[in-house]
Structures are given as C-alpha cells and as structure tokens.
C-alpha cells in the first residue's frame, strides 16, 4: 500500500505572505506598544490603568500569535486547541484574587480589627 498522505502531513503555515504584510503587522504592534506607554502617562487609578494595559497587551499578543507565529494560517482545530486550552488554564489560575484583596482589609467577615499594629 502507498504511504500516508504526505500532503496532509505538511504544515498549513507556509510563510509565503508578502513582506509588506509582516511589516504592517509589525507597525501595528509598535503602535499598540506605544499606546501602552501613553496609557502609562494618563491620570487614571491603577485598576483602570491595569485594565487598559491588559487589553492592549492582549491585542498585541493576539497579533503576534496569529501572524508572527502564524497561528492564523494553521488549521482551525489547532488554533482552537492552543487558544482555548491556554486561555482556560490561564483563567483557572485567577481564582485567588479575592484572597489578594483580603490581604489588606482582613477577612470579609471580621469587622472589628484585632489591634495588630504595624510599627
């Protein structure tokens, strides 16, 4: 019998895009990176700044992932696997934040302070 379908084994991402496309993406990423620096100089509170920066960083990373790393050109199944799996794991890591908030305010169910003072 003949060998397995060799074509099917070949990667979908073929790196044949025109250089111009890469440069456009590169410029987009540069602009987004610059945007982060701009956000850093706006006067908003840390939480809002964090949220904006996260948003921009995700956009940047998305561009890099899809076009620099050619995920967009891979099979959709692979794209979904990488994005959904990684996203899920990273999301599952976020369970702890409420405990971080409690580091300062103490437990949500303890009203009176016990009187520990920090020198």
């Amino acid at each position, binding site marked *: 019998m003949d060998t397995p379908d060799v074509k099917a084994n070949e990667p979908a991402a073929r790196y044949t895009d025109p250089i111009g496309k890469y440069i456009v993406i590169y410029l987009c990423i540069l602009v987004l990176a610059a945007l982060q620096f701009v956000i850093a100089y706006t006067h908003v509170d840390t939480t809002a700044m964090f949220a904006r920066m996260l948003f921009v960083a995700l956009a940047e990373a998305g561009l890099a992932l899809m076009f620099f790393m050619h995920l967009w050109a891979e099979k959709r199944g692979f794209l979904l696997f990488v994005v959904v799996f990684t996203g899920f794991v990273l999301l599952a890591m976020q369970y702890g934040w409420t405990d971080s908030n*409690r580091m300062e305010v103490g437990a949500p169910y303890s009203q009176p302070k016990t009187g520990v003072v*920090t020198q």
Partner: protein
Amino acid sequence: MHDMSAHAHVAHHAPPTSFIRKHIFSLDHKVIGKQYYGLALVAVLVGMFLSWLMRIHLGWTNFPIPGLHLLSSNGAPGNLMTPEYYLQLMTMHATIMVFFVLTTAPFAAFGNYFLPIQVGAEDMPFPRFNMMSFWVTCAAFLVLISSFFVGEGPTLGGWTQYTPLSAVGSVAGPGEGSGVVLWAISIGLFCIGQLLGALNFITTTLDMRTKGMSLWRLPISTWGWFITSIMGLTAFAVLMPACILLILDHVAGTSFFVPSNLVISDQLQPHSGGSTLLWQHLFWFFGHPEVYIAIVPGMGIVSHILVTNMRRPMLSHRTLVYSFGALAVLSYMVYGHHMFVSGMNPVSSIAFSFPTLIITIPSTIVVLIWLGSLYGSKLRINSASLFALGFISMFISGGVSGFFLAQPSIDIMLHATYFVVGHFHMVMGVAAMFGIFAGTYFWFPKMFGRMMNEKLGKIHFWLTFVGTYCIFMPFHYLGLAGNVRRYQAFPADYMQPLVPVHKFITVAALLTGASQLIFLYNLIHSRFWGEPAPDNPWQATSLEWSTPSSPPPFDNFGGKLPEVFHDPYQYGVEGSSGDYVMQTSPERIQTVRDEA
C-alpha cells in the same frame, strides 16, 4: 504494511552498540520505560519502608525500633523516633510516593514503553528529550534522598509545604533548613523531567500514529496517557516557578510567601508583605491536577486490561475517553477544595465545591461503564484482571469518601483528619497502585519476554486486597471521630481511645507490606527464570501484541510499521484466530461498535 521510510523525517535512529547507549543513556523508549519502572520500584520500596516506620511509631510510640539510630542519630536517639523525625519521614513518604512512584510508574514507565508501540511508532519523536526526562527525574530523586544525609535531615513540612513554616528556615524548628531547599530543588527538577516527557507523549500520539490508526482507534490506555500528559504540561509548569519562589524566600531573603510581623522563636522575622494563601493557591493549582495525573493513567491501563479479559469491547470506548477529558478539564476548576477552612475567602469555597461535586459525574460514568461492560462478558480471572477489578472496588470506596470532603460544610468536621488520609490512600495509595500492579502482571511478558508466576500473583492479590482495606477503611472511622492527621502521637484526651485502632492498622500495614515481598520475588524470579512468553499470551488485539517478538525488537515492529484495520478492541467476533481480531489483521469482519 508500508515502509518505514514514511516516517523517516522523524526519529529514526540505529540500534545502539555500546553498553552505555544500550542500557544507561539509552534513547530507546522501551529502555527508558524500564528505567522509569526501576526508579519507581526503588522509590516505592523506600516509601513503603518509611510508612512501616511511621506505622510502628503511631501504634507503639515508645517502642524502640532496632537499628533506627543508624538511619539518623539525631532523629532517633536510642532508636526512639523524635516528633520531628516522624514528620520528616512522613513528608518523604508522601513526596516519594506521589511524585516518584505514582507519577513515574503508571504514566512515565508504562507510558514510555507502550504508548509508542500502541500507536504503531518506531520510537518517540524526541528520544533525546526522553532520555533527559528520565535522567532529570532520576537526579531529582537523588536530590530528594540526599536530604536524609544533609544537615538536620529532610523537611518536615508535609508534601504540601505550607508556608511560612517552609519558607522561614531553621528558626521555625528542626527540619526547616536545607531539607526544604533540597525538596524544592528536587520537585523543580521533577517538573522539568515530566514536562519533557509530556512533550514527547503528546507529539507521539498526535503525529506518530501508523497508517490506519485514527484517534478513535487508539486503545484506552493510550488515551489515558495522552490526556494525562496534557494535564501535566500545565500543572508542572506552575509548580516549578512556585518552587523557585519558595527557594528564593528560603535562601535569598525574599518574602513572596511570608507575611510581615511574624514572631518565631521570640524573634521578629525580617520578612514582610508576602501571602501564605498565595502559596496554597499555586500549590493546589498544581496539586489537584496532579492527583488526576496519578489516577487517569491507571484508569486507562485498567480499562485496557479489563477489555482484554472480558473478551468484549467496552460498553462505550468513546464515553470513557470523553469522561477522562471531562475529569481533566474539571481538575483545573476544583483545586480550592483543599482550602475550605484554610482561611481562603469562604465565598470561593462554594465556587470550588460545585465543580468538585460535578467531577463525581464523569467518575461515576467511568465506573458504570466498567460495570456495564462486565455484564454479559466472558470474564477471565488472572492476576492482572483481579488487580484491575480490585482497582474498581478501591476507586469506588475512595471516590465516595471524596464526595463527603467536597462539601465545605462537612469538610469543617473532616478536614485534616484521618478521613482525608483514608480518602487519598484509597484512591491514590491503593487504586492507583493496583493500576501499576495490574499493568505489571499484564505487560511483564511483553516487557521481559517471560511470564510471571500466576499462583504467586494471586496470593499477592488476595493479601494486598484484604490488607489494604484493613489499613485504609479504619482511617475513615478515625477521621469521623476527629483524629487529626500529621500527629506523631495522640495526647489529646478524646484521641486516646482511638490508639487501639491505630495498633490494628499498624499490624495490617506491616502484614500487607510484607506481602509485597511476594511481588518483588515474583518480579525478580520471573525476570530470569520465568516461563518464556509467547508473543500474544492474552489473545489481545492492540498493537503491542503484534510485535514480532517479546520483548519487541529495537524498532518495535521489525522494520515494517504495522497497518491498522480495526477499532482497538474487536473481541467477541468470529475471527480466524478465535474470538478476537487483532488491529493489524486485514481480515474483513463485522466491526463490534459501541453506540454512545
């Protein structure tokens, strides 16, 4: 049959000639699998030995164990174990068992040996990574063991190493010095080793399958290893930085996990700003997937063995695989169930409790599929199938006790008691171990070319099955009565009446432990003097039984990769070779299909 050159672009290496390449730094997945098995065997003997010492101490606290001072003159002056030495042994017992036995044997050892063969590959795509994976794991084991001999001995913080106890150093008492650092280095190395292994397992399963081997034609054991390696990929990747931060806290004076204003041994500690809950979140984010990493390969192995011995396909192969997948997904969402009363936000407890309860559904499906497949089967009883059936029984017992712990309201009474110890020994210390035993009796002929002694195997099974129930069932009762774990003695008034139960458990543990020597004898004796094994002693269908010899030749299939024509478990059909048709047989048959 098609030519191997189809796969020539990956991992084609010639058989080694030198002794070192053949047996030590071997690139052959089969040798590496055996090396992992050997490592697990050494580790389990150490771990079991430690558990004997612990048990003797718990039953008869003032009984001097002859010769114990030779092991550690500080830890056991006059052969009497000190409280800290008990905890040190306990920590080492757990670490060795969880990491170096339960992750290595069912996953790395059997997986390495059989996953490439079951998918019909010559080897893994990255044999060098594979070799490194083993040697890094081996180094991790040596680092861990070395802590017995360095400084004040191994760490006493338990396998969970809760901070700040584990992060502040020797001020917190003996067993918190170099032992912790060695522990963290060892576990960090272990993570690297398993990451390398996981890369190989996943790529082998996805890219190295032979012609005709679609994903749904993979045996369930392969699915078990595959899903486990996906879990391992991210779980170990989180534990490793956590260990590095712990080491920094310990030696570099940082305070990631140590809060401000601690007064230990009347000294105000220099640390500030860290969080102990952060360590718990990071550890359990790894820790819970880890326990499924320990059980899913066992489930796969047991399914594989059961099918062969039931002489019929599973009720539904696919449902089993989907359930494994569901376990893997859910295992990332439940980790906080270890922290219900640990000071975690009590709202999170509810958020973690429901996924934990839901995880019983896929587990139940797995158990019911096994039971339903038994119905109407033509069950063969041999050592392997006995252990596989024992696995089911043990998994039910241990799983049901997990169902109590999953509810925070009940966990108030059961957390940190022997109920938890009973729970996890049932699922992990026994069920998963039974997976290893079943795998050993089943695959030994293929791995070593000789049959194991069935009679000894059955004696071993009976003693172990009854013995482990005698050890671990009473743990649940102790827990209900409020017996706290990680105690080297039970001075509390209400625990005193429970000591006789501990004595009973100790006797059972020693007897059960002793009966493992039968297994050891069987293993060694059969290795050299067992009856020569035929190529397919169990009349099984999957690819590992179609290799041209036992053990398989260097390239597994003797120069010709097999071609696969059937679903993995074509039992109960009229084939030319009897009631089964091998995956490689080009015979036309009416496929035995599952429905769901």
